[in-house]
């Protein structure tokens, strides 16, 4: 079988990946145990306080994730916060092209840096929602007796709406991950050079083109496959 040289680009360091998956795990436990209180099909989890216990354990992990990030990869945390709140004119151009991006096209967009405008907004909203949901969650957990009816209503409204925001952002996050084959970035840490070129060309150009930032891997050439609705014939790559 013929092989070819494929280049992979380092996108997320180990500390970043650990934090991501820890945060993901905690988030889903929180989401499900939280939904147990507002979605009747899941309310059986709440009886006897099971969901309450799991929610609180996961909440502690969720709350500590940024601190863990700072410890494991401070540069990553710093870049995350800085990039998420720094917007340029290109970002506006990108956002205008968002509908096309949503439906699988990137060629009409201006070249992007490390994170594109959509990711910046996702991160920024997640960070804001993190504070809203943590603050209201801590009030609900520790403020027993001092909230009063108005305080309780305010806390549950903030908590509920930030949950909805984070959950919808997560749906989008998963969607884009699988449309654009971005999962390896968080599992292996590397993305294909093709992905980097299509999605984050400016970033690719700015990093050293040598290990460990860019590595070369021998890959088997895949057989051409029929994709429904595509052109019938293709030239073999190579």
């Amino acid at each position, binding site marked *: 079988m013929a092989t070819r040289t494929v280049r992979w680009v380092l996108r997320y360091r180990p500390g970043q990946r650990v934090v991501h998956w820890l945060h993901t795990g905690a988030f889903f436990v929180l989401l499900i145990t939280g939904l147990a209180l507002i979605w009747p099909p899941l309310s059986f989890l*709440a009886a006897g*306080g099971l969901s*309450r216990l799991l929610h609180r354990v996961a909440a502690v992990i969720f709350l500590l994730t940024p601190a863990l990030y700072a410890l494991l990869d401070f540069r990553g945390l710093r870049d995350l916060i800085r990039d998420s709140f720094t917007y340029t004119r290109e970002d506006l151009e990108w956002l205008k092209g968002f509908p096309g991006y949503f439906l699988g096209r990137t060629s009409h967009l201006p070249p992007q840096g490390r994170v594109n405008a959509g990711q910046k907004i996702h991160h920024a909203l997640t960070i804001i929602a993190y504070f809203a949901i943590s603050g209201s969650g801590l009030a609900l957990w520790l403020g*027993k007796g001092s909230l009063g009816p108005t305080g309780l209503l305010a806390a549950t*409204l903030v908590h509920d709406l930030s949950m909805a925001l984070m959950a*919808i952002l997560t749906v*989008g996050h998963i*969607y884009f991950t699988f449309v654009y084959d971005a999962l390896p970035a968080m599992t292996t840490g590397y993305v294909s050079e*093709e992905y980097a070129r299509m999605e984050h060309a400016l970033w690719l150009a700015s990093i050293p083109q040598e290990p460990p930032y860019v590595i070369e891997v021998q890959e088997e050439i895949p057989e051409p496959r029929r*994709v429904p609705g595509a052109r019938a014939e293709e030239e073999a790559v190579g």
Partner: protein
Amino acid sequence: MARLAMLIDLSRCLGCQACVIACKAGRELAPGERWVEIREVVWGRFPELRGAFVPHRCFHCAEAACVQVCPTGALYKRDGFTLVDFDRCSGCGYCVEVCPYKVPRLVDGRVSKCASCLDLVQRGEEPWCVRTCPAGALQCGTREEILAEARARVAALRDRYPEAQIYGETQMGGLGVIMVLPTPPETLGLPAQPQVPPLVLWKGGAQPLSLGALALSVLTSGIAFFIARRRHLEEKRNSQNHGE
């Protein structure tokens, strides 16, 4: 069953606490747990002292805030009383925060409040507190009977207690516990017209909105995925053919 109610006549309560103990024993409450408390309210200066013993217990509001806010439906209304399904309780404590009378407690990780002795009443028996009271201050019956009895007692009290009045006819949509007060509610530590904020904003507003938005996003993404995936792969193929 018809809409039921209880009567508590504060002009007769001795503060003997027999109801507190009968309830604890009859419903087998945990150590330290009580569903009825008796608070002594006194005002004035010796020797002109006035006072009463005021029960602090679930008043079984028709528009109960605790029922509105309970996420699992462990608190619910039946036959005029606010009942508790203790096995469903998640221990979230929202009911504790929201009750305008500050009645519910959390005991052993679950709500603790008078769950009414509806099971006894349905068998033709009286609730534990009612059957125990030595002063005849407690009664249980249909709401019409109780209101009629309360009005009669207030009328009879008027010469000794000119400010005697009924409490519970209108508060919180009507309380399941109708009280005969010798003096106005504020003197006894009872709010004249307790208010709760519009809890429906959460239960009826934010909750369905959040769930609906989430479901919509899942649906939209699910459908869009097939379109987007195909177009992305197409674009990739085109760039492979024209690129490197």
